[in-house]
């Protein structure tokens, strides 16, 4: 039997480490995806000749902040909302009639709002059925996956479509103002470098000014 190929080793590794913990995998690949996408888009803005430089100063930081805020808000908001939805089902607080029937049949109802209660674990640990009830397992996970999907979608909409745009705009506007102010200071410095510096002896003092003016003949109030 030949040794497994690199591809097969990779598939085996993914199964061993991530099939049981898909959330971790989705987080890593999602984060990498956002970073790559932002870098690509920032590059696109940089080379878009139709966008003025002042606007690029906003759009490029906006793009980079987009990835950072997306990752953070995914971890803080999306994952939390998804976890809440999943806990509601696994703890038995939210259930279908079939799940409720199962809980009552196996006298698990009193445990429903207790800390650490998990329907899937209880059913397997207690071996409530000699062969684990596959029909119940199917019914349970169908509902569980549905609630998990809805919760993660709601979390994604809140984090990616509301929180991220607001925060990345704030950051990008701040960076744009800083860059414009920096450019202005540099421009002013460059301009002042070309102003002629008058030597001190060419200026006349206040007292000398009066003496000089007194000697200038007056033309009266007529002006052309």
């Amino acid at each position, binding site marked *: 039997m030949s040794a*497994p190929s690199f*591809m*097969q080793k990779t*598939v*085996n590794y*993914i*199964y*061993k480490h991530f*099939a049981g913990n*898909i959330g971790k*995998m*989705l987080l890593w*690949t*999602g984060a990498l*995806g956002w970073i*790559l*996408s932002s870098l*690509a*888009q920032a*590059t*696109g803005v940089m080379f*878009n000749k*139709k*966008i003025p430089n*002042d*606007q690029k100063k*906003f*759009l490029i930081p*906006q793009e980079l902040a987009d990835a950072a805020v997306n990752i953070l808000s995914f971890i803080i908001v999306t994952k939390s909302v998804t976890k809440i939805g999943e806990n509601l089902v696994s703890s038995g*607080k*939210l*259930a*279908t*009639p079939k799940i*409720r029937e199962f809980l*009552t049949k196996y006298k698990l*109802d*009193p*445990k*429903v*709002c207790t800390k650490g209660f998990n329907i899937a674990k209880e059913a397997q640990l207690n071996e409530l059925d000699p062969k684990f009830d596959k029909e119940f397992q199917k019914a349970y996970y*169908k*509902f*569980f*996956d*549905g609630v998990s*999907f*809805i919760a993660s*979608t709601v979390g994604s*909409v809140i984090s*990616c*479509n*509301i929180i991220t*745009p*607001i925060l990345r*705009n*704030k950051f990008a*506007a*701040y960076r*744009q103002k800083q860059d414009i102010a920096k450019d202005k200071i540099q421009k002013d410095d460059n301009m002042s470098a070309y102003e002629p510096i008058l030597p001190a002896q060419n200026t006349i003092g206040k007292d000398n000014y009066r003496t000089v003016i007194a000697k200038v003949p007056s033309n009266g109030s007529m002006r052309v």
Partner: protein
Amino acid sequence: MPWVGITMSINLDTGKINKSAPSFKGGVQKTLTVGKGLQTAVEKAGGLSTPANRLFLGATALSIQPEIDLHNKDVDKDTQKVSAARTAAKIIAGTLTGVPIRALCIKAIDLGTCTDEKELSKLSESARKWKTMFVPTNVPIERFKNAERLLKKHKQAIGSIVALLVMLFTNFALDVPITKFLTNFFVDKVNKKEQQPEMKGGN
């Protein structure tokens, strides 16, 4: 009409309400049992494919994000317009490429994760290799016979990595050029629209 029933903690044998159950603590019912209609809707949502999910997220993003950019008080009006145009362009480009890529990845993974031994036995050696290229060999293939969910999770894990690798290419080759084209198109449209009332008002 879908209904949401609220159950009490009822002892089925005696028919009495179990007031000592934690779910009935303080007289407040803490559990909820969904009705048939809502259950069907939730289960259908869970069965939605990843491309359909991507399409839904793209549609919601398109309806919300450009509006936020257009009302960004921290920048001038021109930057607001360009930013909103770019955001809309990026979402459209991302959805146009993301949905078919996900669909293709899922198809490829489905083709490469056959665990049906009857079907595999009818194939040649090379065809069998292709059909099982994403099936892990560190567990016996029979393991997946009654564990559809485990296989589904494994497919999701493989799918997310394959999609990431494909994105490495499509981000630069497709997303960026499409975004640039659409951004310039939207900005030109908006500028033309703004110039037209001025031209109409001339002598």
